[in-house]
């Protein structure tokens, strides 16, 4: 795909996102000119809110692009958050803990791949199994009072971090948030510009066509779902090791499912998902600011609904005709 067709396709596919994006930019500029400090805080908070969502969305889209629906993202995140937390609490090593979380996610990915590719179980059931396993295991082994030894701290990237508006949100982040931004572009490149990506998309659209050309459908599905699991694991590690610093029961709080909405809103693309996750992140951040400021006399439960309400409106009203991969959720049977 050369540059001009790429952009043409990009503008056609992402039109609602582009319109939304422009509105967002104007709004941000307006607020920055009136209250710069709060605006930067909101944006920085938005990027971090978006991190687990876009990671979850990329987990989902890697699977679905290869034809496997993953509704177990929530469970993958939760168990990875817990494992990462435990490893850190025992070893005191943050990096080791992050890897443990990623590995835990990958193992759950392997489980999902085994259920849906090899056993050909209904994929919704498979994902539900993972969610239940995660809730059960973390609930059972959870010990109150345990905390992590430190958490991943923000690293300012020198002068870059001092750029107005975007400096703080983009260049003064903890490691997993940086890694996420890089991953968005890496996954985008892999999916749309490499051999692996072409084969993945073919397998998700028309597995038999890929099979007749000698592409190993099962292998591609396995690896994508496992990679997706690892990415969801990173999201879990983010929650305990970077955002909170401890583990709580059910701390994922529906993020795995919101990530699926983000993925659909982002039309099964990493960049689109990132945009959608940022939008969601901004509303979450604004919601927090409103609650802190106490400027509006509305019960906080209602303000807390804002991001979720937005998800519903966006999914129901603005996505328009977005089409999942044709073979999404359908087990492939070789004859």
């Amino acid at each position: 795909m050369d540059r001009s067709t790429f952009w043409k396709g990009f503008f056609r596919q992402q039109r609602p996102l582009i319109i939304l994006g422009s509105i967002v930019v104007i709004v941000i500029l307006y607020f920055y000119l009136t209250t710069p400090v709060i605006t930067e805080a909101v944006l920085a908070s938005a990027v971090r809110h978006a991190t687990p969502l876009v990671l979850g969305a990329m987990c989902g889209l890697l699977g679905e692009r290869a034809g496997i629906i993953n509704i177990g993202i929530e469970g993958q995140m939760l168990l990875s958050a817990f494992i990462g937390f435990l490893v850190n609490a025992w070893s005191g090593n943050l990096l080791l803990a992050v890897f443990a979380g990623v590995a835990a996610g990958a193992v759950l990915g392997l489980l999902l791949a085994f259920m849906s590719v090899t056993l050909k179980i209904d994929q919704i059931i498979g994902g539900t199994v993972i969610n239940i396993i995660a809730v059960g295991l973390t609930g059972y082994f959870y010990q109150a009072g345990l905390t992590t030894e430190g958490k991943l701290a923000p690293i300012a990237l020198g002068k870059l971090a001092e750029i107005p508006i975007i400096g703080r949100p983009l260049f003064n982040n903890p490691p997993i948030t940086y890694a996420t931004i890089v991953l968005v572009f890496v996954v985008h490149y892999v999916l749309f510009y490499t051999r692996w990506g072409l084969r993945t998309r073919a397998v998700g659209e028309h597995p038999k066509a890929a099979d007749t050309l000698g592409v190993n459908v099962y292998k591609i599905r396995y690896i994508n779902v496992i990679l997706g699991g690892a990415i969801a694991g990173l999201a879990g590690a983010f929650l305990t090791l970077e955002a909170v610093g401890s583990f709580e029961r059910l701390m994922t709080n529906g993020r795995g499912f919101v990530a699926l909405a983000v993925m659909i809103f982002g039309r099964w693309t990493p960049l689109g998902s990132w945009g959608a996750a940022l939008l969601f992140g901004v509303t979450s951040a604004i919601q927090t600011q409103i609650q802190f400021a106490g400027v509006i006399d509305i019960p906080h439960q209602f303000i807390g609904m804002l991001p979720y309400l937005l998800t519903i409106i966006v999914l129901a009203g603005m996505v328009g005709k977005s089409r999942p991969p044709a073979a999404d959720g359908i087990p492939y049977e070789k004859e």
Partner: protein
Amino acid sequence: MASHAPQLLMESLTKKNNQLEKRIPMNENIPLALEARKITKRFPGVVANNRVDFSLKKGEIHGLLGENGAGKSTLMNVIYGLYSADEGELFIDGEMVEINNPHDAIDLQIGMVHQHFMLVPVFSVTENIILGAEVMKGTTLDLNKARQDITRLSEGYGLKVDPRAIIEEIPVGVQQRVEILKALYRDANILVFDEPTAVLTPQEADDLFRIMRQLTEQGVSIVFITHKLREVMDVADRITVMRRGEVVGTTTPQEIDKRGLAEMMVGREVILEVEKDPASPAEPVLQVMNLSVNDERGMEIVHDISFEVRRGEILGIAGVQGNGQTEVVEALTGLRSPASGEFYLNGKEMPYGNPRKLIEAGLSHIPEDRQRHGLVMSYSVADNMVLCTYYESPFAKGLQRNKQAVLENAEKLIADFDVRTPGPMVHAGKLSGGNQQKVIVARELSRPVQLLLANQPTRGLDVGSIEYIHKRIIEERDNGAAVLFISAELDEIMSLADRIAVMYQGKIVSTLQVDQVTKAELGLLMAGSEV
């Protein structure tokens, strides 16, 4: 456009008689590109291939002829590595080979053009062609180079495609070229075409035959799977006929005629012409008055048509597809509410959009698309056979279904209508096309029929099934039903109908007795010109 259409149609009509130029019989000493010896492939309950021998000479077009389910596709899937044979040997260029998966076949320069195209609809032509054999620049796909290669290839073989086009946006005939290019891109010199004309218009099919000829001139050897007699007679150098998993024999178009081939295929004498007595029409069963029908967007597509069908006659509706026939059928079967007008069944006015009322008044409907409108593919054959009557005695008692009665009904109909199925509880989707159609015919004709509405009832079926369905339709006529028969095939309309109504742009332009019109005249009427 209207002024050009008649000429085009006449051209395609005359082309049918003026067969593609045949080549002189081939020299016996030409080496074999491919040979299969004693291939046996068993599926649970059937032997799909029983000690099948098949050979393909270099540069020939070898027609592989047989009814649906005769084992043609199985044999080719064995050769392409999609199935593994239980017994038998394969030779390429005289050397014994093992083909365990498509990858092996591709390595041996075998390519396949599948009946249901193996193309990713949302991918571009280029992406589809390179999939599995990608050109890379580092880790990145080199789509520019791939496009150049494809352009060169497509020009070299006269297969015009736009490498950037998205598959779902190009016509079926062009999609097929992409399938062919996919094989050529992998250096195939043996090409298997599996029922390639099933999805093509007659013009596209003629194009394809020209392309096939051209490919053989460039050294490609072609296996051409089909169940259409005319096509093998037109293009094949040799013809191998299969029946029930076995090879019946190999012959050439010079040595045999269509009738002989049909006999080999079916295993008995086949009546290619429909035999029927003259009609003796009685009182009208269906009367349609000033019917107008709109399409989905609210545009009027059928304009104020009136006609009647009498007891004991077959009225054929002829017309190029998309001239309102589908909408008329949908209106008359209650699937679509007409914009205005009325229709009567046995003198009683029928309501709009109420299929059950119509069925209870004696309407039987064989729909155009058997898989979408005729059957519930995931239901058993038995359940499909009571789709119109499940709520009545004896199939229901109060709120409960009577499964015993459903099963007995199915067993009886399977025997009566010769449906080849492993059993009544098998999913309809598992049957072959011909047998699916027989399930529909069995269901529709097992009720008392006042009006039989058959829309393209033989589309995509093999000779044996076509003959059977024609016979049944004529039987219904002779038993006193009125038959409304829609077909895009002129030959079929002319041999089956007693009267013919020609539809053009949503109107009935003419109604004729079948013995008072020639095929050429009908063709002109269908194209909108006066005779």
